[in-house]
């Protein structure tokens, strides 16, 4: 639909194409990295060790040299984009530019760390990234399933929280991780059942319902936590935990092996689910129907797809996935505490949007956000001058830039959030 008095800034005409704009941004970042990071970095060797501590083999580079070198690479990527760059080179060039910028930043930070701490243990970083990204991956997959079939899921936070809670509660009572896992899935789908009934049957605005359900989940879990778990933690809040499973051969790969293939069931499940959802969504009959219901329910209905039934099923399935994501806390890492998800559901929503409503995109976005989170922890540990809070803002800022169309346009499924009334 044409909107005459809205100035559309994102779609460019003439010289300033998207590639050139991004090139300009990269050029600025490269300049910043070369000059500022290069000047602030010290002559210490920046060591990126391939282990969990300072020991062992490492990739080493002089701090100043590294910061300037990687800054120049970003600069070059930006310049290449400003010059005529074939379209297929856009994404690789952008990736090279951004990665080099991050590396330049790390060279500065690691070399400027207090003496004796001039190393970055890559195994820890990779493992931490995946660990922090886990609830985000489950949460954003839940979002993908819901929103691809046309139901906005702002209740991811509530679903994660309810999953974490029921996983901890029933895992503790039964003493079995598997019972806990099933209970977590049921807990998450309870919240999404409410979302489905109220938004599909009673046509309540889906964003409103999501927000209210988050508060409801916060209230119920908080209430029962204080009444049950705090009074008798041994009985109600001491769920057994999944142990780590080592995958033979794969776990011997340097860096990736110890970080990825010695994890718990949730890590493998998350990666498997991304793969399964991707194939199911784009290669199966169910996926085609789901997408058509999310884009144009009337057309799908005309062709005999049961729109409301499919939406019910997908929303409830999404809740189960998010519930399992919540259990990745309580059945593997911590015991349950009040509001323990603490906004991760909203970062998952951000990952979903940043990943453009696709499973693999959501995975990459979740990993990026997880990395930002892990980096904040690492920089805190080496007393960096960069406040961790600003790194923590990164996912949210990136999402705002993405929806504002500054890094390409993101577009939701057309019928996302619109109730379907058979008529």
């Amino acid at each position, binding site marked *: *639909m044409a*909107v*005459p*008095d*809205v*100035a*559309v*800034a994102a779609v460019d005409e003439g010289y300033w194409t998207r590639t050139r704009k991004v090139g300009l941004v990269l050029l600025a970042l490269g300049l910043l990295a070369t000059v500022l990071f290069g000047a602030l970095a010290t002559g210490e060797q920046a060591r990126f060790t391939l282990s969990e501590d300072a020991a062992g083999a490492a990739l080493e580079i002089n701090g100043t040299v590294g910061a300037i070198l990687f800054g120049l690479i970003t600069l070059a990527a930006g310049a290449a984009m400003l010059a005529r760059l074939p379209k297929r080179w856009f994404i690789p060039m952008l990736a090279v530019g951004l990665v080099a910028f991050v590396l330049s930043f790390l060279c500065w930070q690691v070399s400027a760390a207090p003496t004796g701490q001039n190393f970055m243990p890559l195994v820890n970083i990779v493992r931490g990234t995946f660990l922090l990204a886990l609830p985000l991956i489950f949460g954003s997959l839940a979002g993908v399933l819901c929103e691809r079939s046309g139901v*906005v899921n702002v209740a991811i936070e509530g679903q994660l929280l309810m999953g974490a809670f029921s996983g901890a509660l029933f895992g503790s009572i039964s003493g079995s991780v598997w019972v806990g896992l099933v209970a977590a899935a049921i807990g998450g789908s309870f919240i999404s059942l*409410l979302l489905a009934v*109220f938004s599909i049957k*009673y*046509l*309540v*605005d*889906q*964003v*409103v*319902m999501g*927000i*209210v*359900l988050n*508060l*409801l989940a*916060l*209230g*119920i879990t*908080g*209430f*029962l*936590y*204080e*009444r*049950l778990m705090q009074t008798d933690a041994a009985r109600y809040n001491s769920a057994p935990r999944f142990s780590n499973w080592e995958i033979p051969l794969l776990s011997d790969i340097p860096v990736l092996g110890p970080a990825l293939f010695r994890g718990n069931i949730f890590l493998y499940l998350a990666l498997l689910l991304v793969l399964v959802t991707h194939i199911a969504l784009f290669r199966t009959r169910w996926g085609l129907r789901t997408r058509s219901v999310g884009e144009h329910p009337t057309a799908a209905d005309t062709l005999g797809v049961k729109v409301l039934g499919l939406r019910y099923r997908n929303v409830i399935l999404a809740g189960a996935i998010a519930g399992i994501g919540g259990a990745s806390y309580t059945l593997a890492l911590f015991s349950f505490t009040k509001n323990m998800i603490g*906004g991760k559901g*909203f*970062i998952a*929503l*951000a990952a979903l*949007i940043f990943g453009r409503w696709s499973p693999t995109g959501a995975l990459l976005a979740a990993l990026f956000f997880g990395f930002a989170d892990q980096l904040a922890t690492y920089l805190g540990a080496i007393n960096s001058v960069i*406040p961790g*809070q*600003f790194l*923590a*803002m990164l996912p*949210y*800022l990136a*999402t*705002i830039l993405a*929806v*504002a*169309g500054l890094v390409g346009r993101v577009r*939701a499924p*057309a*019928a*996302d*959030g*619109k109730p379907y*009334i058979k*008529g």
Partner: protein
Amino acid sequence: MTDNLQPGSPDKEPASEEQAAQVTLGNTEQAEAATTPTAPHKRPTLGRLFLENLWAANTFTVTLLSLVLAMVVGAVLMIISDPKVLATYAYITARPSDAINASWTLVSEAYANLFKGSVFDPGATTLTAALSPISETLTYTAPLVFTGLSVALAFRGGLFNIGAQGQAIMGVVLAALAGFLLPLPYGLHLLVAVLAGALGGAVWGFIPGILKARTGAHEVINTIMLNYIAVYFLTWLIVQNGVQDPNRTDAISRPVDASAQLPRLFGEPLRAHAGILLAVLVTWAVAWLLNRSTLGFELRAVGANPDAARTAGISVTRTYVLVMVFAGALAGLGGSQMVLGTTAAALTPLVIAQIGFDGILVALLGRVKPWGVAMAALLFGALQAGGNRMQSYSGISLELVTVLQALIVIFIAAPALVKAIFQLRAARAARLQTSLAKGW
């Protein structure tokens, strides 16, 4: 720009009664004026009208019954989470009186405390003790009025402001900074601090407003993201030199000067402060703005149907930006109450609690009308105040209040459900729709 970026735009699909009702959300008041029987040809008696309306699914009845339903669910939660009471249910077939008595004692005591903590305590002997519940209720009400109005105003303009939380945070930050950094005399200092709060919120509302107007970026996504950016900004700011309390090592700022604090209404021990008067004044102002001013008319026109408004020569982009700036300023005022009032005097990471998110519930409960919002805020304030007493006297966690609040709004949002449960007679649908359906 695609169709789904325009909220409240008429659906291209076959319209049903509900959809028509949703589109008219911005014009609820006109709809109501139109439905009031102005030309009575066969006027029934007043008493009969009253009785008929009592059991019809009108706004008041649905609200009241939603409250009842929420309290019933709350009672069930209390019972199933109390092992002693639950034990009596093990032999309910043998002696049902035990289970019933135990449950009744637990639930009635809890709700009695909820009432005593928020409205009136019959056991009070002094005037201070008698006024105390009302004072507490008003203290909790004041900020909720502002955040509720913020969400409601944006709603009427067709925007969903989930960012009241973030705007309130920026409001509380600027209000507190003005409160302890500026050396100003009594009166002026308070004024400057309050305005600083409004400014902080307005800036934080401007961002999603301009992004929506210029790029079509959905305000729901952006306001959610800005909420968290505000949280991290606050936690960073608190521990900076000059802001952090020099005598403390934890995350708390210097306290606001006495000259920038809102005066108390009933004297020292009672916490009610002048914020509630400001809240009433602002409610009146927002009602005037919406119903009597040109901007209000444009705002409602854009909210009801942006395409029609644009055709009529109203600048939709300008309206979107203005709506968000006003909404942000209101939320910022609400945030400023949290340090300038009696709730706290210094910034902490959780200084504004949940007032932004509660504001969404308050706005929906108040049917996005200014005075309705004020009444809804009063109810939520009372629940909060009563919840404190319920926690300390009956040992029922304060979280129950969150559950009650969420449940009330769920039932309000789905009047068809309440209607079905209580077999209410049908009333005009237009008055019951609280929310407008729209996509990202």
